[in-house]
């Protein structure tokens, strides 16, 4: 390469990572009752970043009690216009501290700074601004003249968009008058803990937001706790099933946003260069750690060869490496565990006879990395066409007619998202009607907006987040 980009790292000096973090309960950081902790590591270097407290049953009790008190005495009775002021304040502080949040997110999660800076953190602020606007207008949202909050929400979020998923959960819950106990993912707790500081900075009343760190046990204790009225979970379908079982027969309301195996459908008449761009964005955005990732490419057979040539050529320009480098396109895989899962499924793809092609990107020596990979000659019968890989691995299938495209796209237990690429408007509408997916993107992919509802069909979960629809999950009516 003649034009070698020199390293352009974003400075780490803006973030101040403490050696150890407590739990955020009732407005302050406290030590866990039984003193246990775990380490969070930086996926790009495998270095330990901090000691993180593990919340046990006693801590969950405390946090739920604090949230209940805050709900009954302060937040629930507070007029919506007053709640809005706090949310607007939080949104503005997020904007003011955007660079700090972006750098911390990239360090803890491994995602490229370009994405945390240009996508995650701006969306986080937008989510709080958007739901702040709803707080005093709930009577006009279509859920009756005076919809009431549910009470205390127990929320468990994944590691792929740590702060954004926190915003998706906390902003609507708070706007509608609920209080929350939130558990961030085990591997990515740091931005949630910084968010706790932002709550302090915004002088949010104690107990309205409580952050409990820990692993699956903490999440289970929280979800099964008698004191919560609502469970909101984003994560794997497997854990979602356990949660659905555990809340069955209780008064708890539940929303689940689970896995996906989205089809990105490219027709012969598509704007091919932009379609390829969208396919790349659909699967390699955030290292493919996206529940709505376009992990299956369905391409019309008559242009399959052309599209694959363009796709491979484009993939050779992907820059894999240091998440903090401003020119990085694909960052680190979030954890050793996830890397092992991606590797295992990719090997199964090869064993089952699919053709593997990997972009020739140099990878760093340390850390968790996986080169962007494409499998061709994939059929519906391959496991890599059915199971969620949650990594930078694309399975390519072909179709001959629009009907076949619909049949193949819908032939999955999931149903979170889909993409359509064609220059023909009527075909977009025809197809969108038939695709069994919560979100259908046309000539774009992985676009998120706080005003737009998001959620799945079938094993991708139930309930909607975002938009007016997202309020419903937190209102009794």
């Amino acid at each position, binding site marked *: *390469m*003649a*034009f*070698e*980009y*020199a*390293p*352009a790292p974003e400075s780490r000096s803006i973030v101040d990572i403490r050696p150890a973090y407590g739990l955020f309960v009732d407005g302050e950081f406290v030590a866990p009752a039984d003193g246990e902790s775990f380490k969070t590591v930086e996926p790009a270097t495998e270095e330990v970043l901090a000691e993180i407290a593990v919340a046990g049953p006693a801590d969950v009790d405390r946090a739920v009690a604090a949230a209940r008190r805050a709900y009954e005495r302060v937040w629930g009775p507070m007029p919506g216009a007053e709640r809005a002021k706090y949310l607007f304040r939080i949104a503005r502080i997020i904007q003011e501290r955007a660079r700090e949040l972006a750098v911390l997110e990239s360090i803890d999660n491994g995602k490229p700074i*370009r994405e945390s800076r*240009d996508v995650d953190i701006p969306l986080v602020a937008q989510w709080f601004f958007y739901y702040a606007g709803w707080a005093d207008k709930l009577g006009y949202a279509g859920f009756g003249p005076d919809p009431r909050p549910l009470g205390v929400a127990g929320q468990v979020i994944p590691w792929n968009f740590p702060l954004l998923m926190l915003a998706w959960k906390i902003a609507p819950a708070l706007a509608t008058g609920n209080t929350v106990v939130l558990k961030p993912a085990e591997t990515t707790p740091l931005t949630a803990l910084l968010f706790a500081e932002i709550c302090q900075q915004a002088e949010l009343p104690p107990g309205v937001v409580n952050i409990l760190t820990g692993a699956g046990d903490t999440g289970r204790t929280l979800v099964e706790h008698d004191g919560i009225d609502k469970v909101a979970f984003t994560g794997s379908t497997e854990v979602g099933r356990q949660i659905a079982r555990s809340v069955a027969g209780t008064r708890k309301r539940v929303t689940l946003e689970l896995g996906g195996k989205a089809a990105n459908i490219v027709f012969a*008449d*598509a*704007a*091919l*260069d*932009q*379609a390829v*761009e*969208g396919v790349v964005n659909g699967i390699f955005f955030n290292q493919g750690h996206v529940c709505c990732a376009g992990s299956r490419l369905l391409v019309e057979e*008559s*242009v399959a*060869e*052309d599209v694959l040539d363009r796709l491979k050529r484009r993939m050779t*320009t992907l820059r894999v490496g240091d998440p903090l480098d*401003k*020119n990085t396109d694909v960052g680190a895989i979030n954890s050793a565990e996830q890397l092992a899962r991606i590797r295992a499924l990719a090997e199964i793809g090869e064993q089952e006879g699919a053709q593997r092609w990997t972009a020739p990107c140099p990878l760093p020596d340390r850390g968790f990395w996986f080169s962007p990979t494409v499998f061709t000659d994939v059929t519906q019968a391959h496991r890599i066409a059915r199971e969620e890989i949650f990594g930078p691995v694309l399975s390519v299938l072909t179709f001959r007619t629009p009907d076949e495209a619909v049949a193949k796209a819908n032939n999955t237990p999931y149903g979170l998202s889909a993409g359509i690429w064609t*220059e023909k408007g009527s075909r977009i509408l025809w197809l969108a009607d038939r695709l069994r997916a919560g979100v259908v993107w046309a*000539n*774009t992919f992985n676009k998120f907006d706080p005003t737009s509802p998001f959620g799945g069909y079938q094993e991708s979960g139930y309930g909607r987040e975002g938009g007016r629809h997202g309020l419903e999950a937190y209102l009794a009516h």
Partner: protein
Amino acid sequence: MTRSATKPDPGHAATPESLRTFLHGLPGVDKVGAEQRAATLATRSIKTTAKRWALDLAVRMVDLTTLEGADTPGKVRALAAKAMRPDPADRSCPPVAAVCVYPSLVPTAVETVRGSGVRVASVATAFPSGQVPLAVKLDDVRAAVAAGADEVDMVIDRGAFLSGRYDEVFHQITEVKAACGDAHLKVILETGELGTYDNVRRASWLAMLAGGDFIKTSTGKVSPAATLPVTLVMLEAVRDFRAATGRQVGVKPAGGIRTAKDAIRYLVLVNETVGDDWLDPAWFRFGASSLLNDLLMQRSKLATGRYAGPDYFTLD
């Protein structure tokens, strides 16, 4: 490329129908997607060694241009002197690619740059509107070439293109190409008047099929002139054209590129769309006048660590 089977053969007379069928059969361009791709690439951060390399390359790619009614031999001599030695204070600074002037000033330019390696480009074909009979355009071209121009920048007849008379535009370009002889032909599409990226792609293919050596965005007399997404679409066209025919065509964004930062964004676009093969003054040029001084200022900043005022860089 699966489409090569339907490609008109530029060596033979393409029928109006086959040209139309071909151009309208090219894949469309999604406006939102193309603009988003260009915007994403514009966030690339080019620092230190990469920046130094890019600035030098950008200087070598400049077609230093003056296209004013008030141009005189004196003005052109000054421009040509600057083209040969852009930064008198720094001998390591390379010369620019070419000077670009009106046909009547070609003799002055040729005389001034003789032996320096800097080429002389001349606009022709009734620049900038192109609204004269073909015979007049051809005379314009022959005059420029006879006066010693190494490169001819022609404008296409946008009126004919927009009214769907593709064969007429095709014919004009082939005639101009013939009149150029050995001179390189750059075909100005005037993308600001074409209205859509689909038209930019079609005009790019038309110009390449008709024998253009370069495709160029703009005259600089129409706004918008060069933009990143337009240049992206043209780069995709030259890439696909080479894949289909084996012939490489150059790209020249012109007009509105004023800062070193802009120029580097274009080089990133080239690098990540068509790659190394086009990162050379033989295949990529900037049509610009004020760009050069900003490139020089940034070069000197990188070398010395501080900015010198504009008075330390020469007027052209």
